[in-house]
Structure formats: structure tokens, C-alpha cells
């Protein structure tokens, strides 16, 4: 009998029952909520007169709408204050633990779940946020859902889901200096396309993933959704266990030993079968930069932008649209593109190791005169650790602004926004039209170290020249 994958094992363990049409009623072990996608779900529960089925398995935080210059209440934006108040009321009324700014544990939902030890191997996880795929770094099945499904989870702790196929993606070899997890996932999306993952879960493996820290794996899994995959995961290993040990919500004592046994048992068997397999040579991956309006439109920093006459006919309209929006020239080098703003942060790259790598670059110079540069830690815990290491002073001395934790300039639901056609070097996850708050604003996605390098030079450049 062929071995089973992690997805098979975890899916089967969480199956409440099979539903007609081949869907599964899947038990959700950890439910995370935030202020943007939950208020309407609670309103629906109230209308139905239903309470939360497992309130102790839902945790809340506030991240999208919090300003990063001051979290003082009331929040300056009355709409944001109203959303936070709604979250506070709903959490209190439904018996849900809320990590608000006063708790000392507030932060981006996909940063705090892992750092609190809430995210564990073998779990099913759901959150009304597409980047829930992040949590797959621990060997969990983590699904981004919409608000009606948030209602379903609150009411029943279950979701109606179709079992995805599994594509195993091996990244072999060893990454070169100056090449990061962000470059790995950008290379994967470039290869497979932004829609290549539809119908699939991505299982990331190979020597490069094995050598990665949990924080790096979080970056890779985070952008599974940008590749169109339903979720992405890495099998749990010693790195996973070492990260979890001692975390607030991790088991202790004899329960830890039993947990380790179970966690190891859910990893994919060596002879597991996959619907598809893809392999990338990690040594061939270079620092990457998006140039267009979706994350698949990226090039290595030393490359020139794709020419229209070399593109397959089916892609030409997309390329033309991207060039028209971005104001870049086909065939031009990406290096040397002037930037206006540099943003370091987000659920993709707002963790301590990201800030450390950016700081290594930042300490070598000063932010270019025309450039506005922001560093936004992913959580209060990340901010505290960074402060212990003196990172805020280092960034400030180099001309960066050091902010309070939140989603910040990733998505324009708080005061951190681009203005007009500003072009932003960003460590976030989406370069969609208007994503960073100005309807005509432009985003170049890259690793935090590459963002720091661009901030100093005032233009896109190869971070390897500065390390």
C-alpha cells in the first residue's frame, strides 16, 4: 500500500463526515479572527440565535486597521475605532480570547499564531484571511476563508471543503548568499503561475526547505495563495519542534512528549503519492523583484523585463496591461528603477529574522534623500525582541521610520498608504493595482534585505553587492 501524505492524514483525522457531492465536513482545530472579516459573521450568528460551538478554539486580534504611528484609543479613524469596538464586543460576548494592543500579544494574525504556539503540526486552521496559508509552515492545513465561512466555523467549528490534490514542490540544493525565502516563493510562482495552484495544496520540500528556519518556511507558505493554491505546507521536523518548545500555548511535560509523537506521525510518508511533482534548483534562484501587477510577473534582479514579442499570445494582453499600469519598459533592466517608498513588514516578511536581515543592509548606509522608508514589526513580541537587539535605533539612524505593529502598508486599510503614482519597494505579498492604497500606486515585491538595499540606493539594486 502506498504511503500517505500529511494532507491525507490530517484531512482524514479531521473528517466529521462526508457530504454529498464529494465534499467533506472538516473539523477546524484552530480558528483565528480579526476585525475586518468577522463582524458580519457575528451579526449572522445573532440573527440565527446561535452561540459559538468551541469558543476556546477561536482567538482574535486586531491588525488590518490599526494605525502604526499610534495605537492610542480611540483610534483616529472613526470607522477603524468602530471595527475594533465591534471585535471587542463580539469577543467578550462569545467568550473568545482577544489579543488587543493592551495584551502585549497583538500583531498580525499570521505572526502571532505561530509565536504564541497556537499554530501546531497536524492541525486544521481557518481564518477569514487569504494568507492563512502561512500556518502551513508547521505542517498544518491552513485555509483562508470568507465571512460566511467564518460564521460556519463559529457556529459549528467545521467547514464544507473539497479535498485538494497535492503538488509536491522540491527545492533542491542550497540558496546562495543574499537569496531568501521570499525569492524562493517568487521563483515558484513565476514557474507555476498565479493560477497554477488552483485545485492543489502545495507540499514544499527538498534540501532548501529542510535547511530553512520556521520563519523562512512561514514566508514560503504565506504566498501559496499568490500561486493560486488552496493551502501550502512543510512537513514537521526537528526545526518545527525546536521552535514550538516553550511557547505559551505549546504543551509541556509528558503532554509535550505525546505531542511530539503525534506531530511526527502526521508527516508525509516517504512513499506518499502526489498528483503532481515539480522540482526547482535552489542554487539557481537569484534575488527576485516583481515588475508587474501580479506576483508571477517577477524577474531576477539582474534580468531584463520580458519583451512583448517573446510572450505567448495568451499572455500578451496581461503583459500590456501590466506595462501600461507600471510605466516600465519591456526589455529594460529592473535594476536601477527609482523608488519613492520602501516598506519592510507584513505577514510575509515582518518577523524578527526579516528585520535582522534588513538591518544588516540598513547599517551600511543611509536612506536615499527622496525615499520614505518604513519598518513595521509584525507583532508586539517581534517589536520587543527587535528593541532588545537595538534594531529600532539602528533603523532610525539610517533614516527609516520605526513603527508599531500591524498590517500597515501591505493593504491600505490604515493611514499607511502610497500617494499618487508612487513606486514602492515592498516586502509584502501583493503587487496588485492599487493594493497599497493609491489607486495608481505601484508595488515592487522583493525580500526585506532587497527593500533595505533599494531604500539606501534610491533604486532597485542587487543586495548581494551590499552584503
Amino acid at each position, binding site marked *: 500500500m502506498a504511503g500517505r501524505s500529511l494532507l491525507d492524514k490530517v484531512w482524514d483525522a479531521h473528517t466529521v463526515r462526508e457530504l454529498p457531492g464529494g465534499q467533506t465536513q472538516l473539523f477546524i482545530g484552530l480558528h483565528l479572527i480579526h476585525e475586518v472579516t468577522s463582524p*458580519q459573521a457575528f451579526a449572522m450568528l445573532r440573527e440565527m440565535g446561535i452561540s459559538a460551538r468551541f469558543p476556546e478554539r477561536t482567538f482574535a486580534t486586531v491588525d488590518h486597521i490599526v494605525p502604526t504611528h499610534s495605537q492610542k484609543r480611540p483610534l483616529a*479613524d472613526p470607522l477603524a475605532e468602530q471595527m475594533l469596538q465591534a471585535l471587542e464586543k463580539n469577543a467578550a460576548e462569545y467568550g473568545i480570547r482577544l489579543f488587543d494592543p493592551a495584551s502585549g500579544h497583538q500583531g498580525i494574525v499570521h505572526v502571532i499564531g505561530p509565536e504564541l504556539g497556537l499554530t501546531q503540526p497536524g492541525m486544521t486552521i481557518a481564518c*477569514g484571511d487569504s494568507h492563512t496559508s502561512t500556518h502551513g509552515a508547521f505542517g498544518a492545513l491552513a485555509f483562508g476563508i470568507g465571512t460566511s465561512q467564518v460564521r460556519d466555523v463559529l457556529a459549528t467549528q467545521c467547514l464544507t471543503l473539497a479535498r485538494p490534490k497535492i503538488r509536491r514542490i522540491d527545492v533542491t540544493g542550497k540558496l546562495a548568499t543574499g537569496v531568501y525565502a521570499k525569492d524562493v516563493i517568487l521563483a515558484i510562482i513565476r514557474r507555476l503561475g498565479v493560477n497554477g495552484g488552483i485545485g492543489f495544496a502545495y507540499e514544499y520540500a527538498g534540501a532548501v526547505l529542510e535547511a530553512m528556519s520556521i520563519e523562512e518556511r512561514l514566508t514560503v507558505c504565506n504566498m501559496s495563495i499568490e500561486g493560486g493554491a488552496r493551502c501550502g505546507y512543510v512537513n514537521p521536523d526537528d526545526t518545527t519542534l525546536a521552535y514550538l518548545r516553550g511557547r505559551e500555548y505549546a504543551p509541556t511535560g509528558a503532554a509535550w512528549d505525546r505531542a511530539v509523537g503525534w506531530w511526527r506521525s502526521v508527516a508525509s510518508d516517504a512513499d506518499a503519492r502526489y498528483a503532481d511533482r515539480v522540482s526547482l534548483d535552489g542554487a539557481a534562484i537569484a534575488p527576485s523583484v516583481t515588475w508587474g501587477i501580479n506576483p508571477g510577473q517577477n524577474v531576477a534582479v539582474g534580468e531584463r523585463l520580458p519583451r512583448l514579442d517573446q510572450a505567448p499570445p495568451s499572455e500578451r494582453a496581461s503583459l500590456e496591461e501590466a506595462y501600461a499600469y507600471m510605466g516600465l519598459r519591456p526589455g529594460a533592466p529592473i535594476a536601477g528603477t527609482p523608488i519613492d517608498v520602501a516598506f519592510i513588514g507584513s505577514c510575509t516578511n515582518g518577523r524578527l529574522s526579516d528585520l535582522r536581515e534588513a538591518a544588516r543592509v540598513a547599517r551600511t548606509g543611509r536612506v536615499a534623500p527622496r525615499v520614505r522608508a518604513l519598518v513595521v514589526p509584525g507583532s508586539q513580541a517581534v517589536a520587543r525582541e527587535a528593541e532588545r537587539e537595538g534594531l529600532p535605533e539602528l533603523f532610525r539612524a539610517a533614516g527609516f521610520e520605526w513603527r508599531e505593529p500591524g498590517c500597515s502598508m501591505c493593504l491600505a486599510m490604515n493611514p499607511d498608504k502610497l500617494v499618487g503614482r508612487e513606486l514602492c519597494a515592498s516586502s509584502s505579498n501583493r503587487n496588485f493595482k492599487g493594493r497599497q492604497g493609491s489607486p495608481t500606486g505601484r508595488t515592487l515585491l522583493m525580500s526585506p534585505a532587497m527593500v533595505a538595499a533599494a531604500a539606501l540606493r534610491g533604486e532597485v539594486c542587487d543586495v548581494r553587492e551590499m552584503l
Partner: protein
Amino acid sequence: MDTRVSRVAGRACVLRGDDIDTDRIIPARYLRCVTFDGLGEHAFEDDRKQAKGDHPFDAERFDGASILVVGRNFGCGSSREHAPQALMRRGFQAFVGASFAEIFFGNCTALGLPCVTLAPADLARLMDAVEADPAQSVVVDLAARTVACRAGTFPASIPDGARGQLLDGSWNATSVLLEAGAAIEACAARLPYVHGFPG
């Protein structure tokens, strides 16, 4: 209330382009709210402004359309249900495209809005036909798994699970999930982490 959805018939609107994300469908600034009310008027607001009136949503010939015809990977990106809510509140009751991002597809199903896919050549014929004659009626038939217009009747795909939920009216999943009753707690009891890895 009869919640079954077996057929959507009406005028269609063609929105060309691939990989249209939910930030474009409803810009994030309109997510600063605690209800979905009023989202319809802001659908594609920034795209429409930049098109200076030359956007399908501002074209009189598509007024009153209840079916939106789109390209590949429609609804990618953010999980915001505000996107299908905005389109629904604008009057769309069904989507026909080359492919749909999965969270968008799930959100639509949860609202009783079918998303069906056509083969590329059929989709191109449908788009051309509707643009040439937007007044014609287009029929999305879930029971027959077809999309029909004057140019022809095309085989349409939709996963069995979602199709079943729409056909039998069980797309509002909460009540179906509740029917599992104690089986939910039984499943939880089998999962060691739910109870702190007891010995």
C-alpha cells in the same frame, strides 16, 4: 424561502482580462465597515475611474446584467467576501469564466452564486456573442451543466459538491454542518491536541 439555484437567466456583462483580483473588485478602503451594505456602488471603483467611463460596468448596453462573464483566475488574492457581496449587490447572480480563484469560488457558493467554467474557445464565443448583442438572454443551467446564448449551448463545468449545494438549496452551509450534531464533538475527541494531548 426556496433557496435552490438551478438556473440563472438574464442579460450578461463581459469583463475581459485575466487574474482580476478582489482588491480591484472592491478596494480595501471600503472594507472599513461592519456590514456589507452599500458595497455594490463601489465595485471596481478604481478601475472604472481609470477607464474614464470606458468600463463594462459603466456601459449602458450592459445595464441590468445578472450574469458576469470573466477570464482566468477571477477573484484571486484577498479572501474578502466583500468582493462577491459587492457584485451580488450590483445585481449579479452568476459568474461564467475560464477559471476562478478558490476562495472567491467558495465565497460565491456560500452566497448561492454559481461560478461555472467554459472551455476557452466556448468562452471566447460567448464573450463575442454577448458583446455583439448584449440584449440577448444568457442562461446558466446548473442542472444541465450548460451555458446557452444565441451563439450556442456550451458545456459548463462546476465541481459536484458546489453544484449539489446550489441545486438542493443547501449552500448556506451552517444548517447542514449543524446536522452532524454530536459527530462534531466525537471528531474533536479523537484529536489529541483538542484536549491537550492527554495520557
